[in-house]
């Protein structure tokens, strides 16, 4: 019944056995993406093992060590209250990462739910939800976050909420567009023809196929959210002092920028590398997930 040509053709395809492996294969050939991945993994490790790596308690005040230049005891120097900058940067990574991941997850969940319903069901539901999305995204992103934080007061929990709430609109739009695209596919029709219910079709057939650009945007967005958290903390609306945050460290150091530049340089470098890492990774993922690049492989 089967032909040899079919069998031959398929045999050579055996080697690449999963979609995930194929994406990884493409990702690892992109040097910038690997640099991004390295930075992100490095940040995660630092955040996870902050208490092991940090040589000092990040909130321990030691006024006699005030404003020490970087030296062997304090690798990145100390701030005006004599706290070790290196330890504060390391613990700051924890705050940044948690805010980045949690706020993005909140945005993602709201966005996926609204976007999937809008895109799948269409009609008046879609119009209504998209107008709500328009209203939310009509506010400038950062201004809305500032307004919410001013209203709720600075705390980690409120940052999650504020940055999560302001960020979902882009997800909703992105996912809606993808769902509309995917739901017209033949395989969705095929799934319907075997009697699958709406919920099953959305969760099992549409969303996994709509996810590629969402993954890319999520990677880029975490960087953006970390930057926003730093901005809020810089304005005194973010992580409540004395807990370390890169943004508030910048704010505390800005008065000493000319005589103790290490106070602003290290938090600046930390923010820069983190956001760079996420952006490079996001860009790399975009290239790796783009199916059109397949053509180059097949030649």
């Amino acid at each position, binding site marked *: *019944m*089967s*032909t040899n040509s*079919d*069998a031959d*053709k*398929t045999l050579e*395809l*055996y080697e*690449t*056995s*999963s*979609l995930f492996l194929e994406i990884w294969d493409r990702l690892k050939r992109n040097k910038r993406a690997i640099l991004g991945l390295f930075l992100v993994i490095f940040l995660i490790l630092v955040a996870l093992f902050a208490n092991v790596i940090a040589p000092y308690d990040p909130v321990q005040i030691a006024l006699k060590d005030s404003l020490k230049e970087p030296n062997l005891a304090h690798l990145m120097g100390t701030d005006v209250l004599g706290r070790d900058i290196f330890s504060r940067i390391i613990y700051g990574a924890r705050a940044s990462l948690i805010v980045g991941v949690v706020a993005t997850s909140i945005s993602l969940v709201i966005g996926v739910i609204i976007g999937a319903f809008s895109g799948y069901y269409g*009609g008046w539901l879609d119009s209504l939800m998209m107008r709500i999305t328009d209203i939310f995204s009509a506010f400038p992103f950062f201004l809305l976050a500032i307004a919410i934080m001013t209203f709720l007061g600075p705390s980690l929990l409120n940052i999650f909420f504020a940055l999560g709430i302001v960020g979902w609109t882009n997800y909703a739009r992105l996912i809606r567009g993808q769902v509309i695209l995917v739901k017209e*596919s*033949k*395989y969705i*029709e*095929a*799934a*319907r*023809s*075997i*009697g*699958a*219910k709406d919920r099953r079709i959305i969760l*099992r*057939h549409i969303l*996994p*196929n709509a996810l590629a650009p969402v993954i890319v945007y999520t990677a880029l967005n975490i960087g953006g959210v970390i930057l926003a958290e730093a901005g809020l903390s810089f304005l005194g609306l973010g992580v409540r002092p004395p807990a370390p945050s890169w943004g508030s460290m910048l704010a505390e150091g800005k008065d000493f920028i000319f005589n103790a530049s290490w106070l602003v340089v290290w938090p600046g470098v930390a923010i820069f590398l983190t956001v760079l890492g996420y952006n490079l990774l996001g860009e790399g993922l975009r290239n790796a997930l783009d199916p059109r690049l397949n053509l180059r492989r097949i030649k």
Partner: protein
Amino acid sequence: MDQELLLRVKELRTHFYTDAGVIKAAEGVNLEIRIGETLGVVGESGSGKSVAAMSIMRLIPMPPGKIVSGEVMFDGKDLLKASEDDLMRIRGNDIAMIFQDPMTSLNPVLTVGEQIMEAIMLHLKAGRTEAKKKAVEMLKRVGIPEAEVRIDNYPHQFSGGMRQRVMIAMALSCNPKLLIADEPTTALDVTIQAQILDLMNDLKRESGTAIMLITHDLGIVAELCQRVLVMYAGNTVEYTDVVSLFTKPMHPYTWGLLRSLPKLDVWAKQRLEPIQGHPPDLRNLPQGCNFAQRCNHKKPICEQQKPTWLEIEPGHFVSCFLYEEEGKRHD
């Protein structure tokens, strides 16, 4: 002849309401399929073949589509009046479908095994291990080598012909009573086409599944089908057994179709005779017979009234004014 009736569609009308106007994609579809029989549905692109099939399964996207009227009796139930829950049970279980393009009808992020198992778990209430066993068995039945390994592969690791086999395995996994195949071989090359058609025929003989085969290839019809339905511009124009269709076709459109085929038995070099003109705009159908403007046997009444669907001879239905009086041609 006295096989039991499985599906009867009567005066089915499906319209699409678009910004550019109402598209009458199916405008009076009549057909019958008996248990275990293969019905070929032929007609040019846009004649409403696929829309009719999708309407039977109630898979027309609504909006913009709407099944305006008609009756679809399947196994004693009117599917147009059935609840959505009932339909979910029927789809994939009693009626299954194979689509034209196997390259796009499989979900790229799920393994083929997962996709075959989906229908089995949904309808046969089987557990995962049991469903997987059944899926492997189905893959073997449709002639996929090393089924135990291939079941964990993704669709992009299969060639076009293999994917269509997977689609067939998926469709037949719950032993449906009716298989709707919407141009199952159009996207495949000719040798693979023959294999797939043979496979469908073999499986039909084994399992007694009736097939509604949508195609525009009269050769396939001659080979596989017992009965034929000819469609034109949303109408069913002729319905008969396959022998009558080729030996004594009755509708002028069917004559045209047959004349436009290349013939092997004609000795001289002979030009094919195409049917002149174009099918009418489905948004703006003529008042009379849809085929009137292209018909060589047109009468005045053809442009004023729609012909009715008449049984001219036992089992031979035609919708044409040439036969309006007791099967007598009067032109």
